[in-house]
């Protein structure tokens, strides 16, 4: 049962719907989406024009679902989509598209281009045109549990260390807790302090929480590849655990696409609304801040700017929570020009960071140029964000450009300055 062009076309025929039809009939080729896409702006290469990345999907829609399109296909006027065309498009749909969604906000006729990229990836995936990096991550997540192949013992060990560091207990598989806490592998491996910060904050706020030994992983490589069947398998683990432990809320960690997967795509993947709420850690912290539970004893002194991760802010809708939190904990926070839903992507979201081919990494470095200018224009040495993947991608880019910029996680920053 291997991937094939027929499967790809078949998948596209399943997902093409009225919005996609309306979008393709509205596009006037004005090129404004390119002016909003960091890959085009930083490289100047017209092939990175967002709507152009959807050319195969457009032709399948036209040939399958319009009368004139069918005629054009039969008369040979419109060439059917070929396998090597999809192969050529892989670089456009994955390497040079982080699904940051900025193009969808800019299109004058209202085409939701990122919505269509997500659908096109359904066809790309089952036709075997997916970057190896993401394919590996998906394989590991489905077979082992997480994109980095972590198993529960590794998580348990991190929990033990966190308990020693904070002196607080971190419950596991505790039924009836308020929050089921999810972690992303990035946090378990690179930023274990996130769990300690959470423990301290929850303790301070008096909120009960638990982890689930069979559903600790928040990320969803199925979404990144663009295959709903695999994504359903991954997200069902979280839903089953949450329903088994009868928690009221599931806490999505500092990870971009995880929030999109669990909060917004999950119900549509499993085909029914959740019986619990999904809350992003920032939304929770903001709630605590408003209740006055979250207080800081001192403030972070140096100048810093905030990077709003696309999947959480622009596409996820967590618009207003981050800024007040940063203002609470940072002495002189400098707001950047394009912020919140107008922010610029770090260049690694939507699975792009998992692609380690040379060209992809060079492209990401180039795309980081826009973020580099933001940092330099603000003249800061520190940048805070709340997505582990953004931090990794930007740290790599900062090393690449030998900049001395320090990256902080917002939750950890709050925890460090939390009132005892």
């Amino acid at each position, binding site marked *: 049962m291997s*991937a094939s062009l027929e499967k790809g076309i078949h998948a596209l*025929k*399943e997902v093409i719907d009225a919005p996609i039809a309306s979008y393709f009939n509205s596009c006037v080729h004005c090129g404004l989406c390119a002016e909003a896409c960091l890959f085009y702006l930083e490289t100047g290469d017209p092939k990175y024009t967002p709507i152009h990345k959807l050319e195969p999907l457009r032709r399948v829609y036209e040939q399958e*679902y319009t009368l004139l399109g069918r005629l054009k296909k039969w008369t040979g006027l419109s060439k059917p989509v070929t396998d090597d065309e999809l192969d050529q498009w892989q670089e456009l749909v994955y390497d040079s598209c982080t699904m940051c969604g900025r193009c969808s906000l800019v299109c004058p006729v209202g085409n939701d281009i990122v919505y269509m990229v997500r659908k096109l990836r359904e066809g790309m*995936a089952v036709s075997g045109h*997916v970057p190896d990096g993401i394919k590996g991550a998906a394989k590991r997540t489905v077979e082992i549990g997480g994109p980095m192949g972590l198993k529960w013992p590794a998580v348990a060990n991190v929990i033990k260390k966190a308990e020693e560091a904070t002196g607080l207990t971190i419950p596991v598989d505790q039924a009836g807790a308020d929050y089921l806490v999810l972690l992303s592998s990035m946090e378990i491996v690179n930023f274990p302090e996130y769990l300690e910060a959470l423990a301290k904050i929850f303790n301070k706020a008096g909120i009960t929480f638990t982890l689930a030994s069979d559903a600790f992983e928040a990320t969803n490589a199925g979404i990144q590849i663009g*295959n709903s069947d*695999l994504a359903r398998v991954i997200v069902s683990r979280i839903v089953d655990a949450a329903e088994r432990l009868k928690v009221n809320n599931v806490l999505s960690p500092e990870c971009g696409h995880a929030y999109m997967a669990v909060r917004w795509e999950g119900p549509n993947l499993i085909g029914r609304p959740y019986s619990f709420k999904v809350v992003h850690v920032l939304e929770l912290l903001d709630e605590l801040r408003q209740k006055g539970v979250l207080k800081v004893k001192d403030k972070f002194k140096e100048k810093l700017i905030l990077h709003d991760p696309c999947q959480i802010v622009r596409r996820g809708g967590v618009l207003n929570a981050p800024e007040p939190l940063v203002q609470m904990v940072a002495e002189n926070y400098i707001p950047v020009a394009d912020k919140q839903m107008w922010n610029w992507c770090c260049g690694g979201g939507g699975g792009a960071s998992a692609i380690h081919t040379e060209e992809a990494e060079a492209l990401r470095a180039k795309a980081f140029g826009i973020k580099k200018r933001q940092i330099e224009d603000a003249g800061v040495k520190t940048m805070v964000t709340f997505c582990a993947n953004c931090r990794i991608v930007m740290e790599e880019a900062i090393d690449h450009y030998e900049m001395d910029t320090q990256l902080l996680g917002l939750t950890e920053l709050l925890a460090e300055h939390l009132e005892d």
Partner: protein
Amino acid sequence: MQGSLIDSLARQGITRRAFLKYCAMLASMMALPPSAGRAMAEAMATARRPSVIWLPFQECTGCTESITRSHSPSIEGMIFDLISLDYQETLMAAAGHQAEEALHATMKSNHGKYLLIVDGSIPLGMNGAYSCIAGRSNVDLLKETASGAAAIVAMGSCASYGGIPKANPNPTGAVSVSDLVKDKPIVNIPGCPPIPVVMTGVLAHYLTFGALPELDAKGRPKAFFGETIHDRCYRRPFYDQGKFAKTFDDEGARRGWCLFELGCKGPVTYNACATVKWNGGTSWPVESGHGCLGCSEPDFWDGGSFYKALSMPADPLKLGGAAAVAGAAAGVAVSVANRVKKGAAKASHEKATLADLEK
């Protein structure tokens, strides 16, 4: 009736001064320099009067009446006398064989020099049997007479373009003079009827300069048919301000506003009615409150209703209903086909596994 014009005019009680005034006015109207006026006066006064043959074919005598001004004799009528009208059925005393002999005598004696005026269209149907004179079809008569003519004047829309007899369905197969005669200089003076002064202007020009005046693409004298009625119309300012009469007796019509909405064909009709006017300068169709019919343009009778505004489409929504039904039907057909295809695709969905990611 030979002898110079000035003698006959004097006998009619027209002083030389009056004649000079008339020539000055005519020259000005034909946009000729004032000096041409005097030249016209001399030429016409002394010219040997050319012989003119007037051949009436499928015509209603409206042109004859308009040209000869039978209802009010004036200088123009007298000028008309300037020509020795040797053959004109309505006006000549002779009839029958006598008239025929006069015609053939004139043709023989002035061969190649006489002016042929044609009035009415020429039927080709039933090889010309629709209209005959003395047993001979108009077609033959025209061909024979035209061969000896120095120049031909097609008088009125019928002779110029076929006019009303040629209107759909054109039962008699009527055609215009220029459709039949190709080898002679022809000047068309369209109009239903044409303006008298145009006729005398052309004759005066022919006599003075021995040639026909400058013609436009449709063979009409540019001096009179160079501009559209619309461009010369005194109600034009109302058109520019968008002030239109909606019905023939509403406030706008009383105020003398533009009749564009009531079907005036002024913008597409070339003629001199707006400046020269009719009935001795009394008035003209628009001034009397009715839109121009465009009678000096070819096939004006088939140019759509006289009361439907030019820019107004006839009935664009005529096919609208049927088109809407057909459009909806096509749309629904495609949408059903789409639903079936999408449903089948969904039904035959095989749950993707990791293996499906590998080629």
